[in-house]
């Protein structure tokens, strides 16, 4: 059975159909590239899966569980994490604190144990800090660990988001344009990083990216959207030669 099943999802904003009967599946361990021109509905899909938007119709199941029955903060409990296209970091905290909040779901200390600094809270805090450090090391961000998240370059912030998603041992990670703001060399190493992370952490990756070379390089499956509709789905080498896909990207001639 597929890990993530999106079936017949439609999203309507006023008169605009942002997603129209979208269905696809994502197998465990796969890297799926979701591509399409601007405004095709890629980020909308992310927002549906992470329960920020309510779809007008359809269903989303993850590992057999109905995601649409959960609210936004419960999604992380089943192991679904994401990054944001325009960043959703917390600039008032340091980088390492940002990453520590990343594992909010799997940590336990509450207001009382925190206020009294009970031993359970202190050991959890120490462990959390160590794991956050390890996640930062893995992404290569030790240097900025104690900086405030505000005021760092865009590319660094994107990587902080990656580290923040990684600390929680996610099963599915949704990356929203991770390569935006990076140089060509950085994009290449990011592609390798994503593959490496997937192998080391047994991740399943749903990737939205405009950088075609990178998407085609690492995706094992492609889903192409245009105006909220799926126009192609399958092996990258097949999909890239699909006439409808070429037309969507190049315009009809």
């Amino acid at each position, binding site marked *: 059975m597929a890990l993530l099943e999106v079936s017949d999802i439609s999203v309507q904003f006023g008169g605009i159909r942002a997603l129209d009967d979208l269905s696809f599946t994502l197998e465990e361990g796969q890297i799926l590239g979701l591509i399409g021109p601007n405004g095709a509905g890629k980020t909308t899909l992310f927002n549906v899966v*992470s329960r*920020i938007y309510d779809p007008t119709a359809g269903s989303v199941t993850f590992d057999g569980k109905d995601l649409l029955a959960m609210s*936004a*903060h*419960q*999604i*992380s*409990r089943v192991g679904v*994490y*994401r990054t*944001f296209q325009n960043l*959703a*970091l*917390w*600039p*008032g*905290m340091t980088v390492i*604190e940002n990453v*520590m*909040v*990343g594992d*909010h*779901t799997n*940590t*336990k*200390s*509450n*207001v009382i144990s*925190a*206020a*009294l*600094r009970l031993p359970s*809270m202190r050991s*959890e*805090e120490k462990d*959390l*800090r*160590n794991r956050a*450090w390890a996640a930062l090391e893995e992404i290569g961000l*030790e240097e900025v*660990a*104690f900086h405030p998240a505000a005021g760092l370059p865009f590319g660094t912030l994107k990587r902080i988001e990656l580290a*923040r998603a990684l600390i*929680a041992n996610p099963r599915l990670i949704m990356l929203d344009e991770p390569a935006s703001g990076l140089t060509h060399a950085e994009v290449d190493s990011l592609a390798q990083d994503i593959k490496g992370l997937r192998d080391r952490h047994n991740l399943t990756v749903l990737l939205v990216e405009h950088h075609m070379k990178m998407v085609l390089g690492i995706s094992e499956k492609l889903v192409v959207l245009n105006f909220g509709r799926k126009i192609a789905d399958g092996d990258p080498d097949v999909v890239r030669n699909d006439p409808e896909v070429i037309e969507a990207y190049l315009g009809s001639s």
Partner: protein
Amino acid sequence: MSSPLVVVAKGGAEHKRWQYVQYLYLASFVLLVPVVLQPFEIGKMNRALVLSVAILAVNLVVGFNGMLALGHSAFMGVGAFVTASLVQDENWDFWMALPVVVMVGFVLGILVGLPALRVKGLYLALITIAQATVFPTLVNIDELGIAKRTGGPNGKGVSEEVIAPSYFEWLPGVDGARGGSAYRYWCIILILGITLLLVTNYIRSRPGRAVLAIRDNEAGAAVYGVNLPVVKTVNFAISAGLGSLAGLMWCLDKGFVAGQDFTFLLAVDLIIGLVIGGVGTLQGSLLGGLFVVWVNDLTKRITIPLGLYTLNGDGPLAKAIFGLILILFTFFAPGGIVSLAKSVQNKLIKVVPIRPDGTPAEDVDSFDPGMESDRAQSAMKLAILGPVLLTIGWLLMNVNNLIVGCVAFGLRFSILVTAPVAMLVGSNELKALLAGRRPESIKAQASMARLLGGLGFLFVLLYGLWLFKTQYSSR
């Protein structure tokens, strides 16, 4: 000075020494208040500290959670009336009333917060303003026995015997009289200290970080598992409980509670204290309370004749001055006093965090006696500057002018920032001198001055201790 004078590792010996000096100054300040000041002045200090707790409560919601709660005067009022009623009418012990009062505030916070926090933006501001406006009239209602409990428009007095438990009589400044202002001061300091400790722990931990995350980016927080309505509501309820606690302290301080004390204007005072102290900082709440009381006191003494019209601070215009200060701070110092102080402190000392493997995250550059001479010069200047600023601050305090007064306030508190660093420099110099390894690279004059500077601060401290000793032993 672009790079900080001193870079120390967090938790290292030098960082600790620096912190101890800070604590020492703070402790001497806390100890001297009930001994040196007149009872009347202690009363004002008490009021300031009570406001500090209330401002801390507002800060939890506004500063740390980014929600606009503008009606904490009502929570204070509830706390004050519940305290008065329990202690005076039901003969409860004062300390027994405390947890009940906090719980009442907490539950009220949930009742108000649950609907108001569901929606974003200004609706919470709207509800809390309504709550603050309604409260003073609510206590005057004759029905349901409310006015009988609260004393209605006449207010409710609490006798000194019941408000003040008897086991603090040995503390400095307390001359045996239960309920005297020095006595109340110690009760207030005790509650304030514990509250500050608990709140600091709360904010700097998992639940506190979730609160901050909501302030900084709600969508991000939700995706990472923060239950927005629950965290917001619990935080708001804690804040309401603290506001209620501040009401209990108010009752302890004044021994009298009345509805007209807890109007919207009190809520605005809290906001002003918050902004001037520093939104979203723990120290700011403390300073804000002091500032509000002190400016209130200062404006009362100001009269400026402007031809036909005389600007008289002892009247309605005091509020206008507050309004003006609020606008000026919003425009020119949105971080409040704390951010101003921090920008000074950042030039003096930098505390480097420690990596999990135990090494500092950046190079530590402490002021070994080997530090090069231009930095030694800077340290010297700093060491001399501190006491000078303090003295000027004391002198300016007596000038009846708002702006000069504000500068004086800043100068007096500047010692809290400059003194510990200068003391650290001085003590290191002393150690090197005693060990006989004072290197030649430092100009003799510079190290001499640093010693003198250190001694200057010691003098301030010893003078205070001497005052303390003479006053205490004369009783």
